[in-house]
């Protein structure tokens, strides 16, 4: 499992920079790797829209935006984590915990602001904990977060002895159910996360450092980056996003329970990997996550519109994750092989020149 991670230091975007696109390149693997997913989305949207034209109605699209806000917000932060070669399997339990804390605080008579702040702080604490395990103690992120996920699940169950916590405080549902100009506030928050996420990743030094750490941690360390701090910071961000997602869910339902949405972790992972962010780290982008989000939302919505059993959804989504990861890995191996070929060719050319 680690071998895969090490092999893949050559990532497609870097190759693109070396070869300015030509007409021949447009139909090659690089182009498909870069924009294939956007084409897939267009085809999928067309198919679903033909199957049921109401899919493209403004109401339906706005509904989807609100419905997918929690998963989308966490997916933005998960993209950061995956870019630095991390992973987080604890988000489903963490999401529930943040929702439970918000609901408990509001049900306990605290003001809505305090309840929301408590949920955010809980999310940040989860992020610090996971970050300490993965970046501080260098524990394999998959296993560390399986473990922390169980701790969080235990807390969820302890905090909800009556299965549900309901909140009837007025205004608690303003964030989750409110809307402005006909668009749900959740949707605005999601869009803000996507835009800010893309900006920080692409236009700040911090974002560039994250790519460097994910691309080659050893080289990043030798060039003076604080690899552990940078890695840990992505978990902090994910914890914060989990807090936001959890409080939005609690606010929308005006209630919380343990295991609110146990399968949300699959949605988040599917969104990120489907966009084409590499699990090997060092490459990826928030626009990819946005496209992945649109695809997963379209699939789910399409299933509902076509009246298919939700259990087929789990099979389709699982298959989609596998296909996306397999294709991405294949593209990466092809790129690595091409790079090796090219450098071998260059070496033989320069060898001839010197002799």
């Amino acid at each position, binding site marked *: *499992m680690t071998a895969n991670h090490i092999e893949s230091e050559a990532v497609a975007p870097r190759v693109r920079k070396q070869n300015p696109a030509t007409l021949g390149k447009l139909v090659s693997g690089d182009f498909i790797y870069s924009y294939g997913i956007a084409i897939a989305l267009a085809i999928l949207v067309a198919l679903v829209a033909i199957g049921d034209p109401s899919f493209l109605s403004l109401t339906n699209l706005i509904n989807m935006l609100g419905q997918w806000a929690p998963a989308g917000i966490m997916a933005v932060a998960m993209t950061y984590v995956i870019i630095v070669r991390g992973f987080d399997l604890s988000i489903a339990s963490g999401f529930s915990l943040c929702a439970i804390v918000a609901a408990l605080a509001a049900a306990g008579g605290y003001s809505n602001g305090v309840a929301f702040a408590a949920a955010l702080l809980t999310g940040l604490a989860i992020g610090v904990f996971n970050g300490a395990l993965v970046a501080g*103690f260098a524990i394999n992120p998959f296993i560390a977060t399986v473990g922390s996920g169980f701790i969080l699940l235990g807390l969820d169950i302890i905090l909800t002895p009556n299965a549900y916590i309901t909140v009837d405080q007025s205004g608690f549902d303003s964030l989750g159910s409110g809307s402005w100009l006909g668009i749900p506030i959740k949707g605005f928050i999601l869009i803000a996360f996507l835009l800010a996420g893309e900006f920080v990743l692409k236009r700040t030094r911090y974002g560039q450092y994250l790519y460097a750490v994910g691309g080659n941690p050893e080289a990043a360390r030798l060039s003076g980056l604080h690899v552990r701090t940078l890695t840990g910071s992505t978990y902090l961000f994910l914890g914060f996003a989990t807090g936001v997602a959890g409080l939005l869910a609690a606010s929308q339902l005006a209630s919380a329970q343990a295991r609110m949405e146990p399968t949300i972790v699959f949605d988040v992972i599917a969104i990120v990997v489907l966009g084409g962010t590499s699990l090997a780290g060092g490459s990826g982008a928030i626009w990819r996550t946005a496209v992945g989000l649109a695809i997963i939302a379209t699939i789910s919505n399409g299933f509902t519109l076509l009246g298919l059993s939700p259990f087929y959804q789990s099979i389709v989504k699982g298959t989609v994750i596998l296909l996306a990861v397999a294709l991405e890995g294949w593209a990466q191996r092809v790129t690595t092989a091409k790079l090796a070929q090219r450098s071998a060719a260059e070496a033989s050319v320069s060898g001839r020149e010197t002799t």
Partner: protein
Amino acid sequence: MNDIQPRWYQSRGLVPKSGWAPLLRRYGIVLAFLMLVIAVAIGSPSFLSLQNLLNIVVQWTPAGILAVGATFVILAGGFDLSAASGFALCTVVAAILATNGIPVSLSFLVAILVGVGIGIINAILIVALKINPFIATLASGFALAGAPFILVENPFIMVSEDGFDTLGTGHWLGIPYSGLVLLAFFVIGDVLLSRTPYGQSIYSIGGNPEASHLFGIRVGLVTASTYVVSGLSMGVAAIVSASQLSYSASEQDPALIFDVIVSVVVGGTSLAGGYGAMWRTAIGLATLATLQNGLNLLQVDSSSQYIVKGFIIIVALGFDVWMRSLAQSSERSARRPQSTAQPATYAKALSAAEEKT
């Protein structure tokens, strides 16, 4: 039953070499287990009664069988997160067939084959398509979780057919059949790992797949086989569990996969692959079972037990990482004289070359 240590082991930094650390690494879990048993036995003398011990064995048989499969996978450097939903699917298959008039033995056999099939699918995903094992088995597990509900409308099936519960509740000389199945899995697993070339190649691949390939080990085939073993253990664990309960466990128990991983990790098998043993998994399982029994005797509720177990896995993982870092630092300090010698010889070679020209 020794841990196997191929020669390159010493240089790869899995076991610290000097002081108290190697002893702690190798036998710390045995000490912890004995102390736990003594503590629980003092707290409640009935813990050591034969009846209680047999009950514990029966109760932990499905998790134990799954842990044997997981040990194979983890030793080879992989991971299988699909075990829980694969297990659930196999129980449903056995129950569907048995309630539809298929002979019990045949329905058990089909359930086992379904498990093997799941293992083969995982193996293809990981070995042929080269998908990260965590992602591959997470996704296949997710897909499998929907399967029981598609096979049959209501996958919560009570089975009342004659003979369906024999495997799970029957006895032989007072020993439950399920305990015998568990024992057989552990013994066969241990023999395969520690006494056969196949086992050696698993350790070798977990330790260093690249070097194993250069040695001529068929890395892909052996890695794939560990997932098939894991699939087989899903099928067997499922029929034992379905037979014990006369019920299909279509709702997967989140604690099951957790108990499986914890048994392997707490025993001291490294998640990095290449270090560990089947007896370690047995001790890990026994430790977990004792702990759970102790917590029940102390009347700790099941939700708090999640937290206790979550911390145990993190402590065990931290211990593994700590021991590896100790081993690697001792390895570095052992190498230091060599690395200072190297530039000297290089300089000598350079000057020799200059003299020649």
